[in-house]
């Protein structure tokens, strides 16, 4: 651990660039996924083609996408950010759609009866109720993204992934351990923050019966392609 302390400046820089490379794609992802998800629920015919697209991007190994992109974006941050954004979208869009669809019909009918138009009903009633499922997707996307960035190191853009290749070349296990532990800690930290965000955004959930929370987990699992560390690397 004294090695990590001596190299804290370098590790700090790697950490910052790691977070930037990992979180920007998730941010882009959620900004695009919410409107696209709403569209897919509103105009049902748009859903099948978009679902096919998301499942294709979900299956794409991100290393392969990084390599394809080098030809267009060169060795810049975008070469990593764009594939990870596509990956985030492939997790988030199905989650937004499933979240919106999981809103019980009586709730929608009540909103209509109260005079809510389609747009206002979506934004003020359905979207807040879909938050638990959307956040479940965000957790998958964020944690996966944080771990996937390090693969970018194979093309030289990988944040903390640098510690892996450098440690391997120098046969220095401590360095690899430090990288591994920092990435896992970052993933757990942001996962925890998202759980807190969900509690804050949906105070009513804490009072929901267990059965109901179970249902949310099930919907979220299907929505996230049940993606444990989303498929692609």
């Amino acid at each position, binding site marked *: 651990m004294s090695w990590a302390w001596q190299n804290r400046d370098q590790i700090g820089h790697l950490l910052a660039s790691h977070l930037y490379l990992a979180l920007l794609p998730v941010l882009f992802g959620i900004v695009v996924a919410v409107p696209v998800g709403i569209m897919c629920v509103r105009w049902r015919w748009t859903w099948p083609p978009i679902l096919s697209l998301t499942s294709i991007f979900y299956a794409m190994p991100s290393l392969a996408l990084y*390599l394809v992109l080098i030809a267009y974006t060169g060795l810049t941050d975008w070469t990593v950010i764009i594939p990870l954004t596509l990956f985030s979208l492939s997790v988030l869009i199905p989650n937004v759609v499933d979240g919106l669809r999981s809103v019980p019909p009586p709730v929608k009918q009540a909103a209509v009866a109260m005079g809510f138009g389609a747009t206002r009903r979506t934004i003020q009633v359905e979207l807040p109720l879909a938050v638990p499922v959307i956040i479940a997707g965000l957790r998958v996307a964020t*944690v996966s993204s944080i771990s996937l960035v390090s693969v970018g190191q194979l093309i030289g853009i990988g944040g903390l992934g640098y510690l892996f290749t450098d440690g391997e070349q120098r046969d220095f296990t401590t360095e690899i351990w430090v990288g591994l532990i920092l990435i*896992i800690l970052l993933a757990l930290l942001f996962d925890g923050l998202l759980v807190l965000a969900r509690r804050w955004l949906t105070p009513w959930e804490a009072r929901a019966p267990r059965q109901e929370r179970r249902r949310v987990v099930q919907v979220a699992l299907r929505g996230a392609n049940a993606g444990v560390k989303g498929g692609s690397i």
Partner: protein
Amino acid sequence: MSYFSDAWNWLIASQNWHGSNGIPIRLAQHLEYTGLALIIALVIAIPAGLAMGHLRRGGFAVVTIANFGRALPTLGLLVLIFVLTSGSILSWLIPLVALAIPPMLVNTYEGVLGVDRELTDAARGMGMTEWQILRKAEIPVALPLILLGVRTSAIQVVATATIAAYIGLGGLGRYIIDGLARDEYNVVAGGAVVIILLALAVQGLFTLLRRVIVPAGLRGQAQNS
């Protein structure tokens, strides 16, 4: 469009289809590594998931394994185990199996756990043994989710086996790692295309598999295939 013309020219060059570094051999190696890791993971994860789902126990452990599996950086795990085992077969097999287990485990567990209680109670009421309930009621109903888990693992392992070329494994990743090391961009481009096609083929295979083995009445579930 230089990327795709580079990749295309590499793909149609006949010397890339022969010999020990030819596409057929590399593809066969890749499938071999992937298949071996998947089978080992399958044997461990599916029975464990079925047992825990049926007994409704171990939910916390499953969720923890799932989260941990997602957070674990593939490249880091590969180089760490490579350095620790100094290059035996285990150096790539352990990481591939370790990354394949969580998706299968969590989906199998959630699939069985999600089976309607009334269904299993009815089966029990008909005099089925616990084993019969699992085999005749829970597994068929959970099948779409179980398959989704296996598919996620398969895609994951195909991609990870590519990265394992960095620690010296054969397979399609060789084109990428060697091409990058030698600045042969057309090799990298061609290799990346073959890997993308393989990933899509795996995805397609599971979509097909789902049509064949999931009972017709259950196909509405787990739509994301």
